[in-house]
């Protein structure tokens, strides 16, 4: 298996996204082929299309058989609609040269995203061995780790880097007869005028970077292509192909993070000459219509802008909370954590993205969200209504209905996710708790609270344990059933005391 690389999954078996990467569509029951051969063990899984990669997560062994392919190495795409027993396929041609460079940089990126303390030295070492490229504008030497020049901010294209790799790795063109080192663009040696040959493509021997040039290769070698296929055993080819075409056009991996909007309307207004009479009125009307159209398209562009701003906000919140983490007594921290939970989800799963496996994917996303929300796994219980509100708030756009969330929560058991739905006995309210939740420890805690103050009300318990009121009351009733508490009903409310009637049970 050559082109697909193993990929990282998060706790609910969905892929970890790179920064600035957005999830577009996912499709179940897909299989992978390389050239014409089926890849064993990669024939039944979910295929995710993001703005940067195609990711395959196997259904049976998600931890070991999940791979991805970066889309910057995909040059063309073809559809094959299936015939008799062969399933419809998407045929992607991969440019091997770009793929090799991409692999090196993704390795470097992966190294970067690991914990900085242990990996810092490694990244510096790798940067040193990989080589440097010179920025064409300010001629500052940058490492190959960065896309942009650190001094003047100009981006470099892949070809330029590749070129510079060639030159930096192989020390320019050395003339075969007089060994004078020429510039790589020279066709004849400067000193002795012998014709020079092109430097060969550097071989990707190890991850430590390009080595010296070994074998010469003909000038203008055609880029080597390879075929990779994705089979869609269930339907979904058309939609996937459409999205993929859009992604390949957009090439989001090359896009800047900040795109500033030039207000078009201002420009237009400056250029209109004054017109009079009926002709002028007609012109004005057509001009207004044009402006309206432009405003609408701009408005939709603004929505996309908003989404990118939203991701920036999440990063900002994370950075601030990291800074505040150094001061543990700050009560603003818990407020900020609350905001972070609210802003948590940047790539919500929607129906047109997921299709038939919508509820499964929603369940997984819900699981990720719950992992962030429940800070004390052994103790937290949340009602489904509370989760519904918080989850929708975190999603921001593309809200889900209560029916969807209840269906998704019923999938927890089937997908073996670490959360459980429980129905309260007295009023049938559904709650979600972690599988680690220990009932007996909770009961012991509640009894301790009661002993401290002599009696306890549901309201007190809710504030002590950070549960909602319904859940606190339910817990008290449950402990009463066990015989550890007894109740006192009066016009002023329901209070629970230690059970003095049956002290041996308590």
């Amino acid at each position, binding site marked *: 298996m050559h082109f697909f690389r193993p990929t990282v999954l998060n706790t609910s078996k969905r892929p970890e996204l790179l920064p600035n990467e957005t999830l577009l569509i996912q499709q179940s029951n897909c299989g992978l082929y390389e050239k014409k051969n089926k890849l064993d063990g990669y024939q039944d899984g979910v295929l995710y299309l993001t703005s940067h990669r195609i990711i395959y997560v196997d259904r049976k062994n998600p931890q070991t058989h999940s791979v991805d392919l970066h889309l910057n190495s995909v040059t063309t795409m073809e559809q094959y609609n299936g015939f008799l027993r062969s399933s419809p396929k998407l045929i992607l041609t991969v440019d091997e040269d770009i793929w090799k460079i991409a692999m090196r940089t993704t390795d470097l990126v992966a190294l970067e995203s690991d914990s900085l303390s242990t990996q810092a030295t490694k990244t510096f070492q790798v940067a040193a061995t990989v080589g440097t490229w010179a920025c064409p504008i300010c001629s500052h030497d940058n490492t190959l780790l960065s896309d942009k020049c650190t001094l003047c901010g100009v981006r470099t294209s892949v070809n330029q880097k590749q070129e510079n790799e060639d030159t930096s790795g192989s020390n320019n063109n050395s003339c075969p007869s007089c060994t004078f080192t020429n510039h790589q663009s020279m066709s004849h040696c400067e000193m002795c005028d012998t014709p020079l040959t092109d430097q060969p493509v550097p071989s990707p021997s190890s991850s430590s970077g390009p080595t010296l040039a070994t074998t010469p290769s003909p000038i203008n070698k055609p880029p080597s292509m390879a075929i990779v296929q994705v089979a869609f055993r269930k339907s979904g080819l058309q939609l996937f192909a459409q999205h993929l075409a859009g992604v390949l056009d957009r090439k989001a991996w090359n896009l800047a993070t900040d795109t500033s909007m030039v207000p078009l309307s201002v420009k237009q207004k400056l250029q209109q000459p004054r017109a009079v009479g009926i002709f002028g009125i007609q012109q004005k009307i057509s001009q207004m219509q044009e402006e309206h159209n432009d405003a609408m398209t701009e408005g939709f562009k603004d929505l996309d802008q908003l989404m990118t701003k939203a991701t920036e906000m999440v990063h900002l919140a994370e950075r601030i909370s990291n800074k505040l983490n150094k001061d543990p007594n700050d009560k603003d921290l818990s407020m900020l954590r609350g905001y972070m939970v609210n802003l948590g989800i940047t790539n919500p799963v929607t129906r047109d993205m997921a299709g038939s496996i919508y509820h499964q994917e929603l369940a997984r996303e819900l699981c990720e969200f719950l992992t962030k929300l429940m800070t004390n796994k052994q103790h937290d219980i949340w009602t489904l209504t509370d989760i519904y509100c918080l989850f929708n708030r975190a999603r921001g756009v593309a809200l889900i209905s209560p029916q969807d969330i209840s269906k998704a929560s019923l999938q927890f058991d089937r997908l073996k996710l670490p959360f459980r739905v429980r129905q309260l006995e007295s009023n049938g309210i559904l709650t979600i708790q972690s599988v680690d939740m220990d009932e007996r420890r909770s009961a012991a805690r509640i009894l301790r609270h009661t002993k401290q103050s002599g009696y306890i009300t549901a309201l007190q318990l809710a504030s002590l344990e950070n549960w909602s009121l319904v859940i606190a009351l339910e817990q008290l009733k449950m402990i*009463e*059933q066990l*015989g550890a508490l*007894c*109740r*006192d*009903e*009066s016009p002023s409310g329901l*209070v629970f*005391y230690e*059970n*003095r*009637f*049956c002290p041996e*049970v308590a």
Partner: protein
Amino acid sequence: MSSREFEFPAIHDFPPFYTRQPTETTWQSQAQQWMDLILQYARHHRMFTLSLHQATSPGESPLFENARLQRRLSEETLQEIVELMVQQGTAKWDNGKSQALLFWHKAEDWAEILLQWVNKCGLNNTIVTFYEITQGDLAVDQEFYGMPASVLQVCLQVLVKRGVAQIFKGSGDSDDMGIKFFQ
């Protein structure tokens, strides 16, 4: 009537004592404590009858109400408790379910006490009216002083069944009954 104050047990100051507990085991224990308390209180104050509605009305009974805690036993709960007492044999329903007769001594025990008193006073083989037993001068210090006729009736029936006494109806008023103890 006894002169000293009735001392309530500590459980009487426990607010949940006045709420019917939903858990079975807790309720059993609670009901038992109520039963014992009622009988003790009745014995202390020579209460033979218990009117349920009146006893659980606000401000009526210091037994079923704790003014300091502002808690009161409800009539339904008291009814349940009395029902349990009837099953145990320490009470009897009098008027449907609104009145109960309290037997802090069992009927058989009362019968024994009466018999002993009759022997002590030398009233054997004479006809003694109910009135003499319950309100007579000789019975002032006795525990059964002030016992209502219905309770006395039950106790004497025991003796009649045993065959040591016989009940006569009075000639004039129908509620003036007499009893003759043999031996």
